[in-house]
């Protein structure tokens, strides 16, 4: 029954511990709504047909003798019980909904804390042991996790449909969101508050891992095996590093992790941002009408300050990665773009790069600009203005 209704209403999987009970209320509310709307429409239609002109069922003419404020033959008691019943129904929704809301708002005392920073247009996560990641939030399955969230620029909203949860991420405030993922798996994250031209690309992913895998992951000791659909370019996870990575392969991994490949293609396919295929050392036209050579210096500048020199024909939706990527990581990405120099810019001709062997830490060490650090000094300050 639950599965049938969930699929009928196109709800996503119920991945958090709260999702199922919220969905039950959803079914109750929506079924009642449909019955209400269909019932009123049916009754209206019935009256429209039964009392249509020419059937002689009307009361006038002849002049009727109803009192001035007659109710069409409906007694006051009937009317009162209809509205009383309706109000009671709504109050029941309210009681169930509000009690669930209180559960959503109150994290269990033993939840672990992860700090989240929203920024145009990416999500950054900082973990208790001092590690950090962009675009992918790793959490242990079966343990309550509390996110303390803030924004560096405008209001964003951290939304995980599979968890039925969402909280606005507001600059100058720390808001919180907690959940417990039932099983290991991957769940998309969307920004739900309009935050600029890159709003619909401000996506991320929650990856829930078994407890032990999570611990190893967070200490940067090993990679975990994760099943499920992959967003963007697939990076196969390896249990054992086989050989040291080349700089370009490391760049590919960093680019996938940092979300670059969601806009930049590597096979020449046109997409939201200029393709990296054949970009290195190419002469590119800029939005201001000039041209330049896309050398290592330009590519590095564009990662740090994307708005400065924009490729003609593209809108600036790219966030600055200054302070987010380390110097070695940027070097690796530039080297990766270098390695794509000979890929044809027209789509379909070059094969996708072969899967990388070996591994680099997915989780980068925390920099001085650690997200959430200053705000973390005031825990549980949800809704309060500092």
């Amino acid at each position, binding site marked *: 029954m639950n599965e049938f209704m969930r699929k009928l209403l196109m709800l996503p999987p119920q991945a958090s511990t709260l999702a199922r009970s919220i969905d039950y209320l959803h079914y109750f509310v929506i079924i009642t709504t449909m019955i209400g709307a269909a019932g009123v429409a049916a009754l209206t239609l019935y009256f429209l047909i039964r009392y249509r002109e020419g059937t002689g069922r009307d009361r006038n003419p002849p002049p009727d003798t*109803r009192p001035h404020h007659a109710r069409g033959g409906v007694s006051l008691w009937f009317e009162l019980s209809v509205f009383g019943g309706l109000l009671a129904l*709504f109050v029941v929704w309210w009681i169930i909904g509000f009690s669930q809301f209180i559960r959503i708002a109150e994290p269990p005392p033993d939840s672990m804390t992860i700090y989240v920073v929203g920024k145009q247009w990416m999500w950054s996560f900082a973990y208790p042991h001092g590690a950090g990641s962009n675009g992918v939030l790793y959490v242990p399955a079966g343990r309550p996790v509390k996110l303390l969230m803030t924004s560096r*620029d405008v209001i964003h909203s951290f939304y995980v449909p599979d968890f039925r949860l*969402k909280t606005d991420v507001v600059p100058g405030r720390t808001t919180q969101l907690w959940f417990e993922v039932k099983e290991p798996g991957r769940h*998309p994250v*969307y920004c739900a508050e309009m935050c600029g031209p890159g709003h619909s690309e401000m996506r991320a992913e929650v990856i829930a891992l078994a407890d032990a895998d999570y611990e190893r992951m967070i200490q940067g000791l090993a990679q975990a095996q994760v099943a499920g659909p992959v967003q963007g370019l697939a990076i196969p996870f390896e249990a054992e590093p086989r050989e040291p990575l080349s700089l370009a392969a490391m760049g590919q991994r960093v680019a996938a992790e940092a979300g670059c490949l969601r806009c930049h293609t590597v096979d020449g396919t046109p997409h939201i941002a200029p393709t990296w295929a054949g970009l290195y050392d190419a002469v590119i036209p800029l939005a201001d009408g000039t041209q330049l050579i896309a050398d290592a210096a330009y590519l590095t500048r564009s990662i740090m300050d994307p708005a400065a020199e924009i490729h003609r024909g593209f809108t600036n939706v790219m966030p600055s990665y200054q302070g987010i990527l380390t110097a070695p990581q940027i070097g690796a990405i530039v080297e990766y773009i270098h390695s794509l120099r000979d890929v044809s810019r027209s789509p379909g001709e070059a094969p996708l790069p072969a899967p990388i062997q070996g591994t680099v830490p997915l989780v980068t060490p925390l920099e001085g600009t650690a997200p959430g650090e200053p705000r973390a000094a005031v825990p549980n300050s949800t809704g309060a*203005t500092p």
Partner: protein
Amino acid sequence: MTSYLTETTGIKSWLLTKDHKRIGLLFMIATALALILGGVFALLLRFELVNPGPDFMDGLTYNRMFTHHGIVMVFLFMVPVIPTVFGNFFLPMMLGAPDVAFPRLNLASFYVYCAGAVIVLASLWFGGVDTGWTFYTPYSTSSPTAVATAAFGVFVVGVSSILTGLNFIVTVHTLRAKNLKWMEMPLFVWAIYATAIIQVIATPVLGMSLTLVAVDHAWALGIFDPNMGGDPVLFQHLFWFYSHPAVYIMILPAMGVVSEVVCTFSHNRPSSYRAIAFSSLGIAFIGFLTWGHHMFVAGMSVLDVGIFGILSMFVAIFSAIKVFTWTITLKHGRIRFTTPMLYFFGFMFLFVFGGMTGVAVATSSLDVHWTDTYFVVAHFHFIMVGGTLTMYLAAIHYWFPKMFGRMYPERWGLVGATGVILGFIFTFTPQFLLGNAGMPRRYWTYPAEYQWLHVASTAGATILALGLVVTLGYLIWALFKGPRAERNPWDSRSYEWLAPTPPPVHNFEAPLEITRGPYDYHLPESP
């Protein structure tokens, strides 16, 4: 006696008219242009969304497009349309008055509206606005687009709204015909009166908050910028304090049209006049206490969420009273099934479904999933647009004979209405499901699994647009070629039908003396 259409001629006699009927027609043209413009924006958005990736827009263009769709539809069409067109034309006639209380102010409100509309549209020229019609800070105060221009335009349109509201309140209080008691005014007057109260009280708050945004945007004062000690969420409180009641500014006049249409075409008095009249006032009052339900996940305290949740449900009870009363009014009537009645039937489904999903999104735990998704988009289009647009079209058809002295073609009317209603349902039902599936609002690219629902929605929007084009076509035909209308073709008892068709400049041949109620269908229709 010559009609208001032919009494004076020449372009100047129209542009400088102080006749409430001609001003109503000027507003009708202006708001119809706004509807067409907003509709074209909507179609462009829908076609961009047919594919999950970029098609013919980029992110910034898409954001500008939905912002201008929202601003044009809300501030230039739905808020003003029924009060300024049908309120202007019929409120004085329903009171037996020769004109509104302040005819010059009335004309001024038209030009202030035009000025505001021009400024809003000029902002398109200066780079457009990409903040959404909600202007949320701090994005709006930091956006490089023409936020200040558009905000100023909306401010000016708001001034027009206040002038109209003020005029109507004074007219209802002072210009009722001899013997016309408050409880014998047509129900449309009550609805417009309740709306006017909201317009006068709430619109200044909108003007104030948009001024703060514009000033903040222009000179970076940091009123809503946390880096300078401001509070971005404060703006949301201020904005929704107007914009939630604004929902009732849009729907209450539509409800007034429903009451008139139902009573006229079922030749029956409303099953409870008081219930309809007072629930309008009830909605107007409670509507001021529910703004927080837009902000359940924006960082409000849990207690506030509970309070705003329960208050929102009372609005639904008042609306339910109205729905119930209209339905029972049909009982024992003598129903003539015309185009306005088909719109009424569509309205009943859209309004009840949209209304109950409104209670659903006021249910706090469900709102956490639904807010800022397509579910909310579908909900407010059902209730606001489904309610207001259907009743705007019903009102055009219902009053067309009185306004222009000609009949519209009934069969074409039914065809157009069927297209509009079915197209509407096909457009927004998939969007409810998109919201359930987790598709956020205001995304111009989206994960591919949502595509088929977007395609279905775009198909529905096309049907809706065709229905509107057909309607516009035969109405223009009827304007010139329709058969001549009698004085009271629907056999209504409401007072505006006592005037000649089309009415003369001062509406009635002689001052009206009220001897019976506006719904006394058991009495003969005596002028």
